[in-house]
């Protein structure tokens, strides 16, 4: 009902919407792309460490496991909108600004890295212990077993879970748009919501849905192709 109320007839023409939409889409894709890379580069090793320091891991270290686990849980439990506002000073310190795409990278990464780490950790946990034993018995060191057995065997699951997390980043960027990050979220909120432009809202929603669908579809295909 509320949605219908937000979609009155008045609004920009489609060519005008198109002109605003293209740069916003580009900003969103930039944010998703950069945050995806950062999350993978930090989240993957983090997941490997968290999982393998657990009692069932390859080098159990209870203290390390618990500490990292608690940090991840804390970051995961803060709602993104609040996290975003809370880290503005930190963001300004690291990136020199708290606005635009650059300003959004820090909060987006802080929200996304723990999500990646947890989901990848779940996939690593699904690799059965006998396979790791087989890797060790095949004269592998523990690092070799991680690289040649644990990660490759978990790969289809990792791809599936990373896909879910990536759709999560798209969602975070939309929220970030509300606090000055730009992109499709900004467009949807400032034109569609605040200025009651129903067409603009519709266009943004459609584009966001398409991005999420494409991501999910490609991720699923890749995951299936990797599983034997």
């Amino acid at each position, binding site marked *: 009902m509320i949605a219908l109320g937000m979609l009155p007839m008045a609004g920009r023409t489609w060519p005008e919407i198109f002109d605003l939409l293209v740069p916003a889409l580009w900003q969103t894709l930039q944010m998703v792309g950069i945050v995806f890379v950062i999350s993978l580069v930090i989240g993957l090793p983090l997941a490997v460490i968290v999982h393998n320091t657990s009692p069932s891991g390859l080098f159990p270290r209870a203290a390390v496991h618990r500490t990292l686990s608690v940090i991840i849980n804390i970051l995961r439990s803060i709602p993104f909108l609040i996290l975003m506002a809370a880290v503005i000073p930190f963001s300004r310190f690291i990136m020199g600004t708290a606005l635009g795409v650059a300003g959004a990278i820090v909060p987006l990464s802080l929200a996304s890295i723990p999500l990646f780490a947890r989901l990848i950790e779940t996939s690593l946990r699904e690799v059965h212990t*006998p396979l790791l034993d087989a890797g060790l018995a095949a004269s592998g060191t523990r690092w070799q077993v991680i690289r040649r057995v644990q990660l490759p065997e978990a790969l289809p699951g990792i791809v599936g879970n990373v896909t879910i997390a990536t759709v999560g980043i798209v969602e975070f960027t939309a929220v970030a748009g509300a606090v000055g990050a730009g992109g499709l979220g900004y467009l949807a909120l400032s034109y569609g919501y605040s200025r009651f432009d129903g067409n603009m809202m519709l266009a943004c929603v459609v584009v966001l849905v398409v991005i999420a669908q494409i991501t999910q579809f490609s991720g699923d295909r890749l995951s299936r192709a990797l599983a034997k």
Partner: protein
Amino acid sequence: MIETRSLSQVFGVGEHAHQVLTDINLFVERASITAIVGPSGAGKSTLARCMNLLQQPTSGEVLLDGVVASGLSDRATARQRRAIGTIFQGSSLLRRRTALQNVMLPMQMAGVPAAVQRERAAALLDRVHLTARANAYPAQLSGGQQQRVGIARALALEPHILLADEATTGLDPNTRSSILDLLRELRAEMGLTIVMITHEMDVVREIADHVVMMAQGQIIERGGTGDLLLNPDSSLGRELFVPRQVGASAGIPSYTVRYASSNVPSDWMARLAERAGLPVSFQGASVEEVDGRTVGYVVIGIDLTLEPLRAVLDPLGLRAEPRAPHEGTTHVDGSAA
């Protein structure tokens, strides 16, 4: 040759401490096949994990060819493991690698040049008769084929010791004997020392030179397979050959007669009938040749008490025992440890 010296393993600490292995001293000779048997929870698998250096014992040590191999660093342990090939229960193959790539895994770990890896892996697959399936993924292979790939992989670094942990469990009888034939051939060709962890007593009779019986983390009996089977006082010998239920005797006492010597005359039943002056009814038997000796048991019915029956049979190298009504239904635990 592989040896353990006063090996003990404790899991947990304080009041949760649980002693899994106590003072295990084991010496497995070069080119011999030793079976480790025992009920589940006896510590067989833990012993196996200590022997292939997957686990550090709480105390004691593992020696490979007389050199201490336990208690080393990660890297040094990985190096020592090259001397031991392990075959696991069920499929421990990597799902995302082909049969050939699975066999190459140990060589990649050990840093064998890529060209040699492929060549040697192909030769090993040929040895286990799987050349045609080299590019198949584990999911496309039968249980027996997967186990053959597992054997080829275990041999990839030319180990002199092969450890098989319940390697034939879950395979059908034909597949199982083909795997056992393969292990026997490998021993003959390469002088492999083979340690088999198993609960399948027919596997032990078929392949093992020596048997070690474990219970509650300790070795309770050991010996040559043939000797144990012919020793009527050995509980391990009995467990190796458990009489099956046979037809009921028609009102006369029933006895299990075990072969207790390698010189039992083949016409012993006729001799018994003649000396006792009584008919002997034949009720069932299971007799096999192990190590070139006849072992097993025959169930007979004869209207005679135990004393006079033994007086006739003992000199013939046979040990008679009265049969309880439902004897033969007990057997060694049938599940994997």
